[in-house]
C-alpha cells in the first residue's frame, strides 16, 4: 500500500469543543510533506469532554477526537506483570504487582489491594472465521451476530491485600484450583488489578490480563449445511488448532450428536395460566474422528428425525483434555415439516502456511478443490481493489498456489479463489451433471516494513535533575538500516504521570496509515442463484429422480423480481472572597501568638522548584539531516517524574514511524509537598511533605514549611523539623495549620541534609493562585436588592441605600439606571426574554406578548430606539409562527405542542393574538378564528354541566 500527497496546498481545520461549538476554524497551508501544525489556547473554564478536530479539503473530511479534562497527575504507578499471558485452566497464575514512583524508587511498605475480574473469552482466530469454537447449550444463541451477542460483563472472582516489599513489589499467585472453582464453564480472560493509596493520598490502580484456556487446544466446527434433512447424511467440518491458531494433526476427537426437543406445557393457575418449557435431550450418535495433516476432520451423521441437533466435539485422547470441547447446532427438517431451502455451501476453505508474512516471502496456499479432473480457478489478490488476477488450471484436489508477496501488499491482502467446473466435466460419484463453482477467501497479513522506519531517541544522560538541560538525539533508519534523511518529525516531551491517566496507543501513526484494511470487494456468480441447482436441491428434498430435473442445455439463472415493498445545570458559582475580618480579632484567639511566632524561612542557597509542566516540550517540525539524524536540547521543568520523549515522523513518500524514550528526572534528596489546591478561610488543615532519600545512607534532614501570613502553623508542629530519612526510603512530615482571611497564600516546603550537601525545595505542583500560590476562598451568599422611583421635575434627589450587615465590599456593586419613561425601562426585560429557553405554549406567549406590547408602546409614545425597532419585528414574527405551528386541529392550544387543547392556554393565546392584531401586527385571520371557535365551543350554557 502506498499513498500520494493530495495536490491541494491548503486544508480547512476546524476544532469544536465538547459542546460542539467551533473554537477554531482556519485554512492552513500544507508543507512539502503534506503536514501542518498550529496551536490553540484553551480558555479558562473551557468545557471538559471530547473535542473534535477535523480537517477537510475538496469532498474529503477527516476527524479525530481529543479529550480536555481536569486532572491531578499521580506521583506513582501500579504495574501488574503476570508470568505468562496465557495459561491452562487449573494452572497457577503467578504475577507481580509493583508500585513505583515516576521519579524512580519503589513505594516500599505500601498497602496494596488486588482483585481479579473474569469475563468469558471467545477463541476466534481470524483466519478460521467460518468455524465456531464456542460451546453453548442454547441453539438460539448467536455468537457471530453483532446485533445479538453482548460480551458478558467482568465479574469479580478473587481479591486480597498485601504490603509491598523493599522493592515496592507484591508477589502474587492465584491458585489454579481455587481459580478453577471460581470460574464458570469455558475459557476466561482474567483482569488482575492492583491499587494503592500513595503518600499524597491519591489512589492509583494498574492492571493486566491473562487468558485462561479451557484446554490445550480448540476444536472448530463448521456445518456443511445448517439445515439438514431427516434420514439423510449431513456433515460438519472440524478443525483442531492450538492457542496460536496453528493446526493440530492426529488429534482424536469424539463427536456426539444430541437431539433437542422442547416440550411446551400450559400450566393452569388461579387467575389464568402460564407456559412452561422442558428441554429433552437424546443422544442419537457417537463416534470418533482423527484430524489429518491439516488439522481437519469431517463428522458425518444421519439425523433420524427432525429437530435441533447439537454436534459436540471433544478430545477423545486423554482425560486431561476434558476442557477441549466445542459444539454447534444444526437444524434438521423432518418429513412432516415444511422443507425450506438448504443453505448454500459453496465456500472453499483456503489454507496458508502462515498468517503473516514479510515482504519478499512467498505464501503457500493450499486450494482443496472438491472438483475432480482439470478445471479452472480465478485467483485474485484483493484489498479495496483487485490488485492481481490470474486464471490458473487445476488438475487435482490439492493444488498449492504460491503467491510472492511484496511491500505493496502490506499491511494485508485477501486472496480469493473462484473455482468453476462445467457440466461436461468429470463429476464425483453419481451426482447429476451441473455446472458448479466454489469461492474461497483467505486473509494474509504482510508486515509494512518498507513503509515504516525505525526511530531511535537517545537522551544525552541516563538520568537528569529538574531544571537541567538535556540533549536528545534522533536517529531514523529504514528497513535496511540505511539513514532516512528529510524525515519530518514532531517531538513531544510529556510527564509520564499524565500519560498514565490517559495512555496513548503506541505507533498510532503506523496503525493509521498501515493498519489492517477491509476487503472492499464482493464476489458473486450466476451460479449462486442457479435455478438448476435449486431444482436439484428441490428434487433431493422431494425424493424425485434428480437426472430428470436436469436439462442438458437449459442452464439458467434467475433473479427474484424484487417487489417494491421488498426493495424497498449551570455550574455552581465559585466561592467568593470575603472581607477580611479584623486581624486583631483573630489574634485574640488563644495560642494565636504562638502560631505567629512559629515561622520558618526558605533555607538560603536552595532553589525552589516552581516550574511544573505536563508537557515540557513540543516541536512540530524537526527534520532529519542526510545522516538521518536530528538533535534538540530541552530544559526540563521542575517536575520529579519520568519524562517520555516521543518522535512521530513522516516522509514525503509517506513512510511513517514513531519512537519513544524515557528519562527519569530526580534528585538525591527530594521533597514532595502534599497540599490542597486552595483553602477556605478558617480552614484547619494538615499539610505534609514526603521527603525521599535516594542515597545509599540514612540522612538527617531539616524539613521546613515557609508560609506567609495567610497560614499560621500550630506550635505543636514546628515550622522546621529535623527527621531521619532512611537510605533509599522516605519520611513524611506534617504540619497543622490555620488559614487566615487573605486572598491567597504562598507555601514553600524545603528539605536540607544536616551536612548541607543535599537540598531541595518546592511549591505545591497543583495550585489555583498566581505564581504557584493557593487561593483562599470564602463562601458568601449573593443578595440583590432593587428599588425604583419617578422623577417628575429637574433638580437634586437623594436616595438612601442601607448596606446589609456583613457586606463584602470586595464583591458588591451599585448600579443606578435612569430611563426617560417606563416603556424605555422595559428594554432590559425584553433582552432577557429573548434569551429565555422557551419550550411550551405558555412560555411562547409570555415572550410574544411583552414584545408586542413594547412594540406598540414604542410606536405610540414616539420613543426612538433603532436597535429595538430593528429587532422586535423579528422576535414578534418568530413567536407568531411558533403559535401557528402549535395550534391543534380543533383550533385550541395545549400546554405543549403535542398536548390536547386546554381552555386556559387557548384563551391566553387568543388574547395575545388579539392584542397583536390591535397593535397593528398582521395575524392570520384563520388561526385566530379557529382559536375563537374552539373557545366558543368550550362555553357551557347557563345551567348545563361542564363537558
Amino acid at each position, binding site marked *: 500500500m*502506498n*499513498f*500520494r500527497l*493530495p495536490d491541494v496546498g491548503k486544508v480547512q481545520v476546524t476544532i469544536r469543543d465538547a459542546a*460542539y461549538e467551533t473554537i477554531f476554524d482556519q485554512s492552513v497551508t500544507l508543507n512539502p510533506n503534506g503536514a501542518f501544525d498550529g496551536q490553540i489556547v484553551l480558555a479558562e473554564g473551557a468545557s471538559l469532554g471530547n473535542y*473534535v478536530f477535523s480537517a477537510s479539503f475538496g*469532498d*474529503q*473530511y*477527516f*476527524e*479525530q*477526537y481529543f479529550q480536555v479534562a481536569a486532572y491531578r497527575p499521580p506521583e506513582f504507578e501500579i504495574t501488574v506483570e503476570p508470568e505468562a499471558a496465557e495459561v491452562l485452566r487449573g494452572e497457577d497464575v503467578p504475577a507481580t504487582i509493583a508500585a513505583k514512583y515516576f521519579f524512580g524508587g519503589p513505594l516500599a511498605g505500601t498497602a496494596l489491594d488486588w482483585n481479579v475480574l473474569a469475563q468469558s473469552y471467545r477463541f476466534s482466530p481470524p483466519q478460521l*472465521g*467460518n*468455524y465456531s469454537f464456542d460451546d453453548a447449550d442454547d441453539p438460539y444463541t448467536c455468537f457471530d451476530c*453483532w446485533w445479538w451477542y453482548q460480551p458478558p460483563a467482568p465479574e469479580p472472582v478473587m481479591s486480597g491485600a498485601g504490603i509491598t516489599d523493599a522493592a515496592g513489589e507484591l508477589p502474587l499467585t492465584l491458585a489454579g484450583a481455587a481459580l478453577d472453582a471460581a470460574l464458570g464453564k469455558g475459557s476466561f480472560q482474567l483482569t488482575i488489578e492492583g491499587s494503592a493509596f500513595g503518600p499524597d493520598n491519591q489512589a492509583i490502580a494498574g492492571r493486566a490480563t491473562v487468558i485462561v484456556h479451557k484446554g490445550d487446544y480448540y476444536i472448530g466446527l463448521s456445518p456443511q449445511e445448517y439445515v439438514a434433512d431427516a434420514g439423510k447424511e449431513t456433515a460438519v467440518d472440524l478443525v483442531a488448532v492450538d492457542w496460536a491458531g496453528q493446526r493440530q494433526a492426529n488429534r482424536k476427537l469424539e463427536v456426539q450428536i444430541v437431539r433437542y426437543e422442547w416440550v411446551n406445557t400450559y400450566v393452569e393457575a388461579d387467575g389464568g395460566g402460564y407456559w412452561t418449557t422442558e428441554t429433552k435431550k437424546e443422544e442419537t450418535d457417537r463416534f470418533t474422528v482423527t484430524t489429518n495433516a491439516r488439522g481437519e476432520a469431517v463428522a458425518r451423521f444421519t439425523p433420524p428425525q427432525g429437530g435441533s441437533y447439537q454436534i459436540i466435539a471433544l478430545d477423545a485422547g486423554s482425560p486431561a483434555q476434558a476442557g477441549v470441547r466445542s459444539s454447534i447446532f444444526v437444524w434438521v427438517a423432518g418429513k412432516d415439516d415444511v422443507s425450506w431451502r438448504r443453505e*448454500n455451501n*459453496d465456500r472453499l476453505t483456503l489454507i496458508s502456511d502462515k498468517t503473516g508474512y514479510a515482504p519478499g516471502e512467498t505464501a503457500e496456499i493450499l486450494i482443496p478443490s472438491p472438483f475432480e479432473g482439470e478445471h*479452472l480457478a*480465478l485467483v*485474485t489478490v*484483493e484489498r*479495496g*481493489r*483487485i490488485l492481481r*488476477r490470474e*486464471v490458473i488450471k487445476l488438475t487435482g484436489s490439492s493444488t498449492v498456489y504460491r503467491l510472492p508477496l511484496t511491500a505493496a501488499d502490506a499491511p494485508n491482502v485477501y486472496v*480469493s479463489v473462484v473455482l*468453476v*467446473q*462445467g457440466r*461436461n*466435466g468429470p463429476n464425483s460419484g453419481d451426482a447429476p451433471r451441473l*455446472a458448479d*463453482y466454489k*469461492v474461497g*477467501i483467505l486473509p494474509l497479513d504482510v508486515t509494512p516494513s518498507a513503509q515504516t522506519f525505525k526511530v531511535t531517541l537517545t537522551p544525552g544522560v541516563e538520568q537528569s535533575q529538574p531544571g537541567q538541560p538535556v540533549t536528545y538525539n534522533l536517529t531514523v533508519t529504514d528497513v535496511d538500516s540505511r539513514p532516512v534523511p528529510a524525515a519530518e518529525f514532531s517531538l513531544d516531551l510529556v510527564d509520564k504521570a499524565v500519560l498514565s491517566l490517559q495512555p496513548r496507543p503506541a505507533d498510532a501513526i503506523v496503525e493509521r496509515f498501515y*493498519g489492517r*484494511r*477491509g476487503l472492499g*470487494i*464482493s*464476489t*458473486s*456468480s*450466476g451460479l*449462486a*442463484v442457479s435455478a438448476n441447482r435449486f431444482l436439484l436441491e428441490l428434487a433431493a428434498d422431494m425424493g424425485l429422480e434428480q437426472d430428470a430435473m436436469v*436439462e442438458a*442445455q*437449459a*442452464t*439458467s*439463472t*434467475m*433473479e*427474484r*423480481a424484487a*417487489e417494491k415493498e421488498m426493495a424497498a445545570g449551570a455550574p455552581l458559582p465559585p466561592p467568593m472572597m470575603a472581607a477580611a475580618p479584623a486581624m486583631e480579632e483573630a489574634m485574640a484567639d488563644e495560642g494565636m501568638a504562638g502560631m505567629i511566632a512559629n515561622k520558618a524561612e526558605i533555607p538560603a542557597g536552595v532553589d525552589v522548584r516552581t516550574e511544573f509542566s505536563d508537557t515540557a516540550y513540543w516541536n512540530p517540525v524537526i527534520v532529519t539531516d542526510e545522516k538521518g539524524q536530528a538533535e534538540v536540547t530541552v530544559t526540563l521543568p521542575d517536575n520529579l517524574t519520568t519524562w517520555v520523549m516521543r518522535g512521530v515522523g513522516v516522509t514525503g513518500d509517506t513512510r511513517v514511524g514513531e519512537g519513544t524514550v524515557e528519562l527519569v528526572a530526580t534528585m538525591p534528596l527530594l521533597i514532595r509537598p502534599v497540599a490542597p489546591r486552595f483553602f477556605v478561610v478558617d480552614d484547619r488543615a494538615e499539610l505534609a511533605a514526603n521527603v525521599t532519600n535516594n542515597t545509599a545512607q540514612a540522612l538527617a534532614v531539616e524539613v521546613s514549611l515557609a508560609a506567609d501570613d495567610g497560614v499560621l502553623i500550630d506550635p505543636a508542629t514546628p515550622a522546621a523539623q529535623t527527621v531521619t530519612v532512611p537510605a533509599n526510603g522516605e519520611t513524611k512530615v506534617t504540619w497543622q495549620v490555620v488559614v487566615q482571611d487573605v486572598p491567597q497564600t504562598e507555601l514553600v516546603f524545603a528539605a536540607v541534609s544536616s551536612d548541607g550537601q543535599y537540598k531541595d525545595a518546592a511549591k505545591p505542583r497543583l495550585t489555583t493562585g498566581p505564581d504557584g500560590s493557593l487561593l483562599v476562598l470564602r463562601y458568601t451568599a449573593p443578595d440583590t436588592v432593587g428599588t425604583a422611583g419617578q422623577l417628575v421635575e429637574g433638580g437634586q434627589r437623594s436616595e438612601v441605600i442601607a448596606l446589609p450587615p456583613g457586606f463584602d465590599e470586595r464583591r458588591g456593586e451599585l448600579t443606578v439606571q435612569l430611563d426617560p419613561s417606563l416603556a424605555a425601562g422595559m428594554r432590559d426585560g425584553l433582552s432577557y426574554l429573548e434569551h429565555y429557553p422557551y419550550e411550551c405554549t405558555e412560555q411562547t406567549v409570555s415572550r410574544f406578548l411583552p414584545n408586542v406590547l413594547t412594540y406598540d408602546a414604542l410606536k405610540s409614545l414616539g420613543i426612538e430606539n433603532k436597535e429595538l425597532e430593528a429587532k422586535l419585528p423579528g422576535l414578534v414574527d418568530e413567536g407568531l409562527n411558533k403559535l401557528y405551528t402549535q395550534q391543534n386541529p380543533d383550533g385550541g392550544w395545549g400546554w405543549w405542542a403535542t398536548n390536547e387543547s386546554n381552555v386556559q392556554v387557548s384563551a391566553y393565546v387568543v388574547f395575545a393574538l388579539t392584542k397583536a392584531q390591535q397593535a397593528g401586527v398582521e395575524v392570520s385571520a384563520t388561526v385566530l378564528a379557529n382559536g375563537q371557535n374552539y373557545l366558543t365551543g368550550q362555553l357551557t350554557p347557563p345551567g348545563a354541566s361542564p363537558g
Partner: protein
Amino acid sequence: MEGGGPLEPGLYLLDSSSPRLDPTNTYGRRHLLVVTELNLTLKAGQREALVWATRLDSGQPAAGLTVTFFEDGGNRLGEAVTDKDGLARLDLGQRTNRATVQAVVLPNSGQSFSAVSENWARGVSPYDFGWSTLTLCPATPPTSTPTGASTGPAKPSTSKAFFAPRMT
C-alpha cells in the same frame, strides 16, 4: 412456450398464478429468469469491476464478449471485452458511491445473453466467511453534532478516505 422444451438464451419473466393465490400480491410469483450458456463471475468494488466469463458446458473461458456494466438505478458504467481468460475489467474511476453493480452480456453480434448481479452471492459473501467487509465511501462531513455517535476513525488513502460504515 407451449409444450415445453429448451428456452433460447435471453431474459424472461416467469409468472405463475393459482386460484388459491391472492391475485393482487405478486410477491414470490414473478421472477426474472436468465437463460444462458455463460456463467459470469463478478468481482465488484467501489472503483473497479471484473467479470470472469466461463461456459457452463465446458467450464472454459469465453473470450471476446462485450460486457456492459450497470449500477443500481440503471446507470450505465461502461463496457469491457473479455480476454483469452474470459476476464473483462472496468475501471470505475473515482466513483463516489457503492451502489450494487450488475454486468450483462447483451445479445449483440451473435454473442449469447448472460447477466450477473453483485448481490448474487448466496453463501459466499464476506460475512459468510466470518468477516464484515469494509466499504469504501466518499467521506462527508457530519450532518449533526457528534453527541452519542461516532463516525469511527478516518483513514487516509491515496485519494479518498476510508470510513467504517455507520451502524446503528
